[in-house]
Structures are given as structure tokens and as C-alpha cells.
């Protein structure tokens, strides 16, 4: 559907919450829709993929985003309708000042489990490694944990942040940080880490070379309807796909 479809809508509210990787795209789409029809109000909250699935399932929001596929149990329990509208990777990131820009999978697991505790051991400064992680609700975390860490431990000394955005700014601010964000979030304020020789970029994710990849989903309770349906259609429309590209993700065909 094109933007014009929204013009005819009555005054109403569309609630969106969940995955934080989705937020830039959601914000942009909302902005365009609300400009076309100021009567519409679209509210966007974070919380993480887990929260998105739960909240939409409970009927607290109209659209719940997730950075992972909802589990079969979840789909069954809530009768979710899913739309996958982008492909994304999860990249390990460090501060740009950090000389360590490549790691092996083993090294990465050892860092996150706390076995390797200083950058010196990896050829960097003689400073402890500050690990940043997300809480259990995060889809980014569950993908990273499964595909990059092979379900290895994450040290309990890790600092917690609440969103992809927060992860990025935490790593930007801390020269000795290591963390993980959605590939779409990478810009020059954080440096992606080459994992087992593959650099996480849009291209390597697209080509399937970079393994830590996932889809970005928007879920509704039951099949989408009303404004939520129009919103989803808009995301999949050519204009929506342009936004997806603009914000650094790979639109699905």
C-alpha cells in the first residue's frame, strides 16, 4: 500500500513495541504516515523482541516487533501472525580506537565467558575487556548467543544495556568495550569485528557468508487487520523497502 492509503483513516492510535533493532525503520515509517495524516498517532516503544512478542500476544500493543522468529510455542499460544520484512546480521563491535578488529569464534566465546579478560591477550592495550550485553528479552542477544557464541556462557561481570541503540552508544563511549549490535546500526562510531575472517557487512550478510544473521519480524495477534495491516503493507511496499535500505537493512523480496 502507498502512503495515500493512510489519508482516509480516522483518528486512531497504533501501538508498536518490542525489538529495538527495528526502531529506526519504525520511526521513519511512522513519521511519514503521521505527516500525511496528523490524526493518526503511532507510538513506538522498545523493550526487546521477547517483550514485543509477549505484549502483542497479550493484546497490549497492536504490533510487536522481534529480531528473531517467534518460537513455535509462542506462535501457538498467542496465534501470532508474522511478517518478515528485512534481513539483518548481528555484528560484534568494538570501539573504533581499539586495534583489535578481528577475532576467531573461539576467542569471541572466551571473551564473553570471561576467560580472556584483557585486550593485551589479543594484541590490544593492557586494559581489562569491558563486556556489554543485553537482557534475555533481546532477539539480538539470542541470535548472537546461539550463532556466534554457540550457546556459550556470558560472564556475569558483563554490563547490561537495554537496546541496540544503547549498545552502540555504550561501545562508542568506552574505548575498551566489546558488544554486539544489529548490522544496520553500524556506522563509523563503532567498529565491526571480523569473525573467523568474515567482516559483518550488508553484503556478507546478504550473500550468506556472514553466518550470524536473522530476519526482522513484525508480529500481530492473529492475521494483521486495520491500521496494523496497512502499516505492514507499507513496510513491504516499494517506499517501505526504500526506508529499510536507507536504515541499513536488507529488504526481503
Amino acid at each position, binding site marked *: 500500500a502507498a502512503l495515500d492509503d493512510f489519508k482516509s483513516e480516522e*483518528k486512531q*492510535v497504533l*501501538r508498536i*513495541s518490542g525489538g529495538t533493532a527495528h*526502531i*529506526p525503520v*519504525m*520511526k521513519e515509517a*511512522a*513519521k511519514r504516515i*503521521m*505527516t500525511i495524516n*496528523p*490524526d493518526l*498517532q*503511532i*507510538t*513506538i*516503544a*522498545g523493550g526487546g523482541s521477547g517483550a514485543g512478542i509477549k505484549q502483542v500476544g*497479550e*493484546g*497490549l*500493543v497492536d504490533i510487536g516487533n522481534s529480531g528473531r522468529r517467534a518460537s513455535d510455542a509462542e506462535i501457538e499460544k498467542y496465534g501470532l501472525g508474522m511478517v518478515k520484512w528485512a534481513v539483518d546480521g548481528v555484528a560484534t563491535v568494538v570501539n573504533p580506537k581499539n586495534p583489535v578488529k578481528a577475532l576467531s569464534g573461539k576467542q569471541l566465546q572466551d571473551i564473553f565467558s570471561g576467560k580472556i579478560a584483557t585486550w593485551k591477550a589479543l594484541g590490544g592495550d593492557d586494559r581489562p575487556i569491558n563486556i556489554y550485553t543485553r537482557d534475555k528479552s533481546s532477539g539480538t542477544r539470542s541470535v548472537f548467543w546461539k550463532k556466534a557464541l554457540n550457546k556459550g556462557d556470558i560472564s556475569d561481570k558483563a554490563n547490561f*544495556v*537495554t*537496546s*541496540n*541503540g*544503547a549498545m*552502540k*552508544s*555504550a561501545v562508542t563511549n568506552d574505548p575498551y568495550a566489546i558488544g554486539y549490535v544489529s548490522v544496520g546500526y553500524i*556506522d563509523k*562510531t563503532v567498529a565491526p569485528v571480523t569473525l573467523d575472517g568474515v567482516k559483518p557487512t550488508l553484503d556478507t550478510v546478504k550473500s550468506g557468508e556472514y553466518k550470524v544473521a536473522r530476519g526482522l519480524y513484525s508480529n500481530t495477534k492473529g492475521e494483521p487487520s486495520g491500521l496494523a495491516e496497512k502499516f505492514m503493507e507499507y513496510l513491504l511496499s516499494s517506499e517501505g523497502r526504500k526506508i529499510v535500505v536507507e536504515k541499513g537493512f536488507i529488504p526481503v523480496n
Partner: protein
Amino acid sequence: MANNCWDKMLKIFSWICTFLLVTAVFMVIGFLVVKGYKAVSLELIFADTRPFDALLLKRQVFGGLFPAMAGTVSLVVLSMGFALPLGLASGIFLAEYAPFRVKWFFSLLFDILAGIPSIVVGLFGFSITIFLHHFFSEQIFPCLLIASLSLSFLVLPYIIRTTQMSLESLPLQVRLTAPCLGATKLENIFLVLLPSSMSGIISGIVLAIGRCAEDTAVIMLTGAVATAGVPKSIFSSFEALPFYIYYMASEYADHSELMQGYGAALILLIISAGLFGVSYGIKNRFATKIPNRF
């Protein structure tokens, strides 16, 4: 002399403490002012929308503070709308009606309420919402209404206690004036006692407003979100200034968003200090202008 030496040390200690505290405070304020003053402009608030259009709600503001400020204002208005009548009535009850034991017990409860961490009040509000959503109506979500109700619980004890204390501190003579002329208890309260203690009550209310405008913990659990635009109904989520600052501090995307964070923090600081000044002014004005002969 040993004596003098101790004295000097105490003086030096107190000067050092003062110096440290004042420096720290000025560092906090100065840091915001130095970093944030450039960001403060109409554009910070209205972004590229024309202020006039925004104020008339003709157009949505994106990337500006306007929705957050509008959210905070609605939040303050609503929560004071709940807390004020309730608080004044309870304060009047405690001061004028309650027998000693009841007064003792209730003021203990209100002191406890004043001490409850705001996040716990937020948790309370949130779980009430979920409860209602499950068992009452699918249409109840965390929203402006819920947030302002929870906030009103947070500031309720302040209003109750200031009302009670201002009423109680009135001298017996003032209390007896109207009864002497044949007034009933109610007439006495509304025509004499409340007007006489107005300055104390108002400055308490202004401080409560400041608390509403400032609190983050309650609203982040009860409906404040990252993007919502100007709230259109009391049943929708909303943006708020303090939550915006928190959000920007943890996940600004680029330099311009960071600057908005600084600007927002500075504006909130100015609003809070302004409210404080107003409350202070009210207290002083009433205290000095009208000679208090009682």
C-alpha cells in the same frame, strides 16, 4: 594553641566541604549549560515544523522536544488533577477532623507513602494495568491516564502533609474567628482556614508539580515511550521530557541527537529550578507583603 588549632581545622574542614559541594553542583549545572546552551533554540523544540502549526496541533513535530514537553505538561496537569482534590481533602481531614490516634496512624502511612521508591509506585501502576487488562477490559493499556494516576500517588503525600501542616500551624485565634461570628466548621475551613494557609499550601503544590515533571521511574513503567507524538488521548502512550533525556543518554544515534539530549536536560533543569523559584517566591511574598500580626 591547641584549642585554636582544633578550631582552625574545623573551619578549614567546613570550608572544604562547602567548596567541594558547591564545585560539584556547579560542575553539574555548568557542564549542562556549556554543552547544552547551543542546542537550546526553537529548532530544538519544534525541529523543522513551524511553532505555530505545532502549537495548534496542525502538524506533528518529529525530531523536536515538542511532543515530550506536551506529554510532560499533560502528565502534570492530569496527575495534579487527581492528586490535588484528594490531597487537599485528606490534608483537611487530618488537620481538622481526625482524632489523635487516627491522625497518628494516617500520617505514618503517608510518611511511608512518601518514602516508597518511585519505581515501586511505577511497578504498582504497571501491575494494576496488567491486572485490569486481563480481568476487566482488553482496552486498558499502559497510558497517559495510568501514568498520571501513578504519579498522583507519588505526590499525594507531599500535598497531604503540606496542607495538614499549614492548617495545623494556624494559631488558635485565627481558628476561632469565624466560629465566633456564627460560622459552621465547613464555612470556617473554606472561608478562613484555607485562605489563611494558602501560601504554605501553594508552595507545597508547586513542589509537587516539580516532582511530577521530574520523575522518570514511574512513567517508564506506565506508558512513556520513545516516540509517540503529541498525546491525542489519555488512553495513548506518550513522550515525556525526563524519559526523553534518559532515552537520549543511553541511545542517542548521532551527534545531533546527543545535542538534543543536552538541550532537553538543560530545559528540564530550568523548568525545575523555575518551579522551585516560584514556590520560594510565593512563600516569601506572602510572608513579607502582608504583615502577619497574629
